[in-house]
C-alpha cells in the first residue's frame, strides 16, 4: 500500500498541473498514470491556448465568446474563472520556459481561432500541446514529484452510502503494468482524476488508443453524475484514413475549405456568411458532412482543406507540423496539394460533474481536464479552450485537494442539485448493470469498511477477484466487442443523430455489455499484460458510450454539437438545462439541473448563435 496526501490519476496536462499545484501547497503528491507522462495525449494538441493577454483584449470578451460558443450551456462561474485565470496560467508556462512562437518584438505570439472576437490563441507552432506537456513534466521532475508510471488505475476506493453526497473517496487501486501486481493507493487529501478523453468509444477519432474514458467510467460507477454526456465534439479537419488531427490553426492562418466542385462552400452554400471557415467547429463539421451527403464531396467521404496560397515561408514558420502529419499519415504534400479532411470525434464536452474547484459530489474525489465537466464548454468547445482548461482547473483541483484556500465554489454538485426528473425516456433496452449488485462498482455493496485504510484494502480485494476471474476463466476476447461498440457509436451517435438510430445504438451497447460478461484474458502472464489492461478499458468504454447515447436520446433539441433530425432548433424554454446521468447503483437515472448564466457582474442572455 502506498500512502500520499494527494493522488493524481493521469499524467497529461491537467494531471501534471494539478500535481505541481498540490506540491506548491506542500502536499505529498504522487501521479499514478497508465502511460509515462510524456506519452499523454495532451502532446497531440496542436492549436493553442486562449488567453486575453493583449491590449484591446479582455477576459470578459473571452468569457462572452466562450459562453456564445457553448450555445449557452456553459456555467458562468466556470467560464469566468477560466477566462480570468488563463492569462496568469499561460504566462506561468512561459516562465517555466515553454517555447512559444514569438513576435518580432520577442513577445509570445497569438493568432485568430474559430469563434473568437480577438486573436488570443497563444501558440507554439502547431505543436502547442507537445510543448505544454513537456514543459510541465520538466517542472514535475524539478520538484521531485513521485510518478508511478505505467500503473493503470482500475477502481476508486470509495465508501458505501446510499447517497453519493455522503460517500468519501480514500484512494484507488492500480495495476502495476510491468510486474502485474495490484496495488492500493491511499490518499488522505484527495484523488484527482485527470484521465483525459474517451474518443475510443468511436471508431474515427483524433484521440489516442489510450483515451478510453477510464476516469469518467470509474467516477460514474462510484456515484458521480456524468454531466451533459451527449455533447461530443467532432473536429472538422481530420485526415480520412487515420483520424489524425489537422489543427484549426490552418484555418486560423487563412486555410480554405473547398468541396469536390471547387466551391468555397462555407460561404457559397451559406453555412457561415460572416466567419466562413472560422465558424465554430460544430458548424463546420455539419457543413462538410452536408456537402458530402448532397454529393459534393470527394469520394463520397471528404472535402479539401487548402493552405497552398499561404506560401511556404508562412506555413513552415507557423504550421510546419501540419506538413509532416499530412505527408506521413495521408501521403499528401500540403505545399503542393490541398489536404483531404473530414469530421472525426475529437473532444468530449461532457464529463464528470465538478464545481469550479474541481471537486465532485463525493468527498475527496476531484476531476480536471477533458474527463471533467465544470462546465466551461457547454454544448460546444471553442478551439484553443481545452489547454487553458487543463492548466486552470488542474491547478485549482490540485490546490484544493492539498488544502489550499481558493474560495468557495458557486456551482452545486450531486443529486441535490437536481431540478427536474426525466420521466419518459424511450429506451429499447435497460441500460446499466446486468448483475445486481454490479461487482465492478465500488459503491455497490463494496466497501463498507470503517476506516480509510480498510476501505482501500477491501476495494483491493475486490479488484484482485475481478482480475483473477478474467485471467482464469475461458471466454471471448474483448477486441471484437470494442470494435462493435465503436461502429455503433459512429453509425448512430455521430454528427447527425435521430431517435431511431440512437435507440439502435443503445441496443448495440447492451449487446456489447452482455457479451462482455463472458470476456476472458487469454495472455496468462502477469508481466506487461496489455490484454488484461485493454479488456478492463473496454468495460469503461461501454459505460461511457451508454451515457453518451442516453443523453443524446433524451435531449430533444439542436444545440451546439448535438444535432437531432426531429428537433431542428435550440429550445431554450424546455432545454436550457444540464443533462445528468447517474449510475444509481447500476440502474441509471437521468435528471436535469439548472444552467448558471449569472456571472459576477452580469447575466448572459441567450442569443441566437450565428457566425
Amino acid at each position, binding site marked *: 500500500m502506498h500512502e500520499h496526501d494527494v493522488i493524481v490519476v493521469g499524467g497529461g496536462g491537467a494531471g501534471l498541473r494539478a500535481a505541481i499545484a498540490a506540491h506548491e501547497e506542500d502536499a505529498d503528491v504522487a501521479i499514478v498514470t497508465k*502511460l*509515462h507522462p*510524456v*506519452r499523454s*495525449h495532451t*502532446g*497531440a494538441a496542436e492549436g493553442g491556448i486562449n488567453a486575453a493577454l493583449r491590449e484591446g483584449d479582455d477576459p470578459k470578451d473571452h468569457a462572452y465568446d466562450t459562453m456564445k460558443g457553448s450555445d449557452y450551456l456553459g456555467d458562468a462561474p466556470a467560464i469566468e474563472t477560466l477566462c480570468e485565470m488563463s492569462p*496568469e496560467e499561460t*504566462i506561468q508556462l512561459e*516562465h*517555466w*520556459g515553454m*517555447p512559444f512562437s*514569438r513576435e518580432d*518584438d520577442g513577445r*509570445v505570439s497569438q493568432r485568430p481561432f474559430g469563434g473568437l472576437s480577438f486573436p488570443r490563441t497563444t501558440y507554439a507552432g502547431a*505543436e502547442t500541446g*507537445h*510543448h505544454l506537456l513537456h514543459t510541465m513534466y*520538466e517542472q514535475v*521532475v*524539478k520538484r521531485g514529484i513521485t510518478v508511478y508510471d505505467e500503473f493503470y488505475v482500475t477502481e476508486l476506493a470509495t465508501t458505501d452510502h446510499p447517497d453519493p453526497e455522503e460517500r468519501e473517496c480514500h484512494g484507488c487501486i492500480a495495476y502495476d503494468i*510491468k510486474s502485474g501486481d495490484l496495488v492500493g493507493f491511499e490518499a488522505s487529501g484527495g484523488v484527482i482524476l485527470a484521465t483525459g478523453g474517451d474518443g475510443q468509444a468511436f471508431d474515427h477519432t483524433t484521440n*489516442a*488508443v*489510450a483515451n478510453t474514458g477510464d476516469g469518467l467510467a470509474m467516477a460514474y460507477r462510484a456515484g458521480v453524475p456524468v454531466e451533459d454526456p451527449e455533447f461530443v465534439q467532432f473536429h472538422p479537419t481530420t485526415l480520412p484514413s*487515420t483520424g489524425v488531427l489537422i489543427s484549426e490553426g490552418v484555418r486560423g492562418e487563412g486555410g480554405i475549405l473547398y468541396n469536390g466542385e471547387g466551391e468555397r462552400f462555407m460561404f457559397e452554400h451559406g453555412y457561415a456568411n460572416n466567419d466562413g471557415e472560422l465558424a465554430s467547429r460544430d458548424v463546420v463539421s455539419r457543413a462538410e458532412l452536408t456537402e458530402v451527403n448532397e454529393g459534393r464531396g470527394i469520394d463520397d467521404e471528404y472535402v479539401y482543406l487548402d493552405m497552398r496560397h499561404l506560401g511556404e515561408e508562412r506555413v513552415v514558420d507557423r504550421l510546419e507540423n501540419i506538413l*509532416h502529419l499530412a505527408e*506521413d499519415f*495521408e*501521403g499528401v504534400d500540403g505545399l503542393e496539394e490541398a489536404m483531404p479532411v473530414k469530421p472525426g470525434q475529437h473532444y468530449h464536452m461532457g464529463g464528470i460533474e465538478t464545481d469550479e474547484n474541481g471537486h465532485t459530489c463525493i468527498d475527496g474525489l476531484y476531476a480536471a481536464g477533458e474527463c471533467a465537466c465544470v462546465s466551461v464548454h457547454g454544448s460546444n468547445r471553442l478551439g484553443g479552450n481545452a489547454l487553458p482548461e487543463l492548466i486552470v482547473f488542474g491547478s485549482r483541483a490540485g490546490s484544493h485537494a492539498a488544502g489550499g484556500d481558493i474560495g468557495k465554489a458557486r456551482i452545486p454538485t450531486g443529486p441535490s442539485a437536481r431540478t427536474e*426528473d426525466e*420521466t419518459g425516456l*424511450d*429506451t*429499447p*433496452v*435497460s441500460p446499466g448493470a446486468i448483475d445486481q449488485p454490479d461487482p465492478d462498482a465500488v459503491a455497490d455493496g463494496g466497501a463498507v469498511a470503517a476506516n480509510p485504510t480498510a476501505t482501500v484494502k477491501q476495494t483491493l480485494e475486490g479488484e484482485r477477484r475481478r482480475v483473477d476471474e478474467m485471467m482464469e476463466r475461458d*471466454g*471471448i*476476447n474483448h*477486441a471484437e466487442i470494442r470494435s462493435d461498440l465503436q461502429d455503433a457509436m459512429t453509425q448512430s451517435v455521430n454528427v447527425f443523430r435521430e431517435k431511431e438510430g440512437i*435507440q439502435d445504438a*443503445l*441496443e448495440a451497447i*447492451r*449487446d456489447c455489455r*452482455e457479451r462482455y*460478461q*463472458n470476456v476472458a484474458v487469454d495472455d*496468462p*502472464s*502477469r508481466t*506487461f499484460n*496489455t*490484454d488484461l489492461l*485493454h479488456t478492463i478499458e473496454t468495460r469503461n468504454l461501454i459505460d461511457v458510450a451508454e451515457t453518451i447515447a442516453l443523453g443524446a436520446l433524451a435531449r430533444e433539441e439542436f444545440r451546439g454539437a448535438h444535432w437531432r433530425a426531429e428537433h431542428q432548433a435550440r429550445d431554450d424554454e424546455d432545454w436550457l438545462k444540464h443533462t445528468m446521468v447517474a449510475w*444509481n447503483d447500476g*440502474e*441509471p437515472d437521468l435528471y436535469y439541473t439548472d444552467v448558471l448564466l449569472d456571472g459576477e457582474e452580469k447575466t448572459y442572455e441567450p442569443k441566437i448563435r450565428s457566425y
Partner: protein
Amino acid sequence: MSTGITETDDDSTETQTQAVGAARAAGDVYSEMTSEEIEAANEQSRRRTRELVEEADHTVELKVFRFDPEVPEKEEPRFDTFRVPFSKGMTVLDALMWARDQYDSSLTFRHSCRQAVCGSDALFVNGKQRLGCKTQVADLADSGVPETVRIEPLPHAEVVKDLVVDMEHFYDQMESVEPYFQDEDTPDGLEEQYQSRENREKVKMSTRCIWCGACMSSCNIAAGNNDYLGPAAINKAYRFAMDEREGDELTEHRLNIIEQEHGVWRCQTQFSCTEVCPKDIPLTEHIQELKREAVKSNLKFW
C-alpha cells in the same frame, strides 16, 4: 428500473425478438454463455480472420519477436509469423494491432497516439530504429507490398516482454541533465520573458524530442557504455543551454554537466542517432555545437 428511464414495451416488436438486449427488456433474464457457445464464438472469430486474409488482394507477413519470462513456451526468445491483409496507408503499428486483435491478444507492444508524438512505439523494423506508427508498410518494399516485415524490440535495451523494452535507463539519463528551465530572475505576474524569433528558431528542433529512445538504441557508444548520457539527454541539455531566457551563469552550469566524463566528448560523430530520429532533430550537430561551446567556455577561464 429506476425513476428516470422507462423501457419501450409496445412498439418495435420486431427488433425486440431479434436483439439480445430487447429480449431482456421483454422480461427475459440475461444468462451467461455456455462453454460450447464460447467455443463457437471464438471459432467464428477465427473463421472471419481467415476469410479476411483469404479475401485480401495483398497480404504481408509479420515476423515478430516474442519473449515472456513468465510463460514457459516464450521463455526462449522466438519469432512468430502473422499474415495480415494489406491496405493502402497501413502502418507497421496498424499491422501489429491487426495481428494482436485477430490472432493473438498476448502480442505486446507500447503504442498510444498513432501520430508520432507520444513516442511509445519505437521499434527495430527490418533492422532499423523506427516509429511503428510513422512507418508505412509499403515504404519497406522497393515497390508494391513487402513480402515480410521483421519487427523486433529496440536493440541495446533490456526486453521486458515481446516488443516492450525497459525505458528506465533512458529516463534516468534524460533526468540527469537537469532537464528543466531554471530562472535567475523571473519577471512578476503577467510580464513575460522576451525571446527573439531567431533564438526560438535556434532551439526549435531540439524541443521536438518525443523521448522515443530510437537514438539511444542506435548509438554504438551508448551500447558499450551505460554511463554515456546519450544523444537524447545531450539534446535536452542543448535545448536549455541555447535558450537565451536562461542567464549566462546557468549556461555555464549546463556546459559543466554535459562536459563531464560521460558527456559530449564520448560522441564519435557517427550520425546514427541523427539518421534514425523520427522528428528529424540534428542530434549530432547539437552535440558538436555543445563541444565547441564547452571549449570556448573553458578558454574564457585561462
